[in-house]
């Protein structure tokens, strides 16, 4: 009788341990899946930030609103200033971090109302560190920035500058 009881006890113990194992596995899988989904959501989260475009001449040149999930990026900037005769304001996203590429991406020119709108699906928007505004000749045939004619800069914070 005692022998049977001990076998039964062992069988029960085995059964309980299998149940615990299966339940543990299910919980583990659930936690893992939830964490991955959370991580994906975090990565896909949109960052919406507003920056002041500070002027090099001591005056505030404007404001820039940037919405991005790292790829889909919308930049809306405004300036209350008008460029000198025969010139236009052009905005640039600059990758100017230490040891970075230094690549300036033109966002186009401000319109006659002083508004700039830019929308693109960028490979990695978070590599950029700053937004610069330069004064360029109207219908400029040179696609490069007139660097020494920079009038304002907005310095980005995280998640930019990666």
């Amino acid at each position: 009788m005692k022998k049977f009881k001990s076998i039964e006890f062992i069988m029960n113990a085995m059964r309980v341990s299998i149940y615990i194992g299966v339940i543990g596995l299910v919980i583990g899988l659930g936690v893992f899946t939830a964490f991955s989904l959370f991580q994906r959501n975090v990565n896909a989260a949109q960052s919406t930030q507003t920056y002041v475009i500070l002027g090099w001449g001591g005056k505030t040149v404007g404001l820039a609103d940037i919405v991005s999930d790292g790829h889909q990026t919308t930049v809306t900037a405004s300036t209350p200033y008008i460029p000198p005769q025969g010139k236009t304001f052009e905005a640039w996203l600059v990758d100017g971090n230490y040891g970075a590429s230094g690549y300036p991406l033109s966002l186009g020119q401000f319109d006659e109302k002083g508004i700039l709108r830019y929308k693109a699906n960028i490979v990695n928007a978070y590599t950029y560190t700053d937004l610069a505004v330069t004064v360029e000749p109207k219908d400029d045939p040179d696609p490069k920035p007139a660097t020494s004619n920079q009038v304002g800069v907005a310095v980005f914070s995280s998640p930019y500058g990666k």
Partner: protein
Amino acid sequence: MESEEGGEYIKMNYDKKNIKMQKKYSHHILLLVVPSIAIALIIIGMVFVPTMNHSAAAQLSQQRPGLNANISLPTISEAARNLAQKLGINSTEVSKPRQNMSDLSQKLAPGGSLANFQEQLKGLGQQLGLNGTLLSQLRQQLPDVNTTQLAQKLDQALNDDDDGSI
């Protein structure tokens, strides 16, 4: 008298020697002098030409401010970021004026963090050779702009975006 004659004799003797030596070594002296002059000229050239070029470049940059061929957007960007970090500012970010207007006003008010940064940027811009004439032209063309106007203008643009104009 003897001594004077002796002196003259010695002197004449010496002169004769000297003439002989000059005759004998004149071409050697030329060999020594010509390269020396050449080396001296080279040294003078090495010292003075870059200085003159530098001062000419400085003069040119004074005459035509902003024409700094070596400067690039990333260089300016890095300089601005360095300055910001020195002042303890990470960025020029402000709260969305639509939600928190006071943040923008405070930061741009005299003594505010961004106002201070902007004031320092002016000096940095001059150091980097940014076009001061152009910046002053901008100032002359328009009156002072306050933060409310700045925020209103951006809000207007964002509202237009929301309306689907982008």
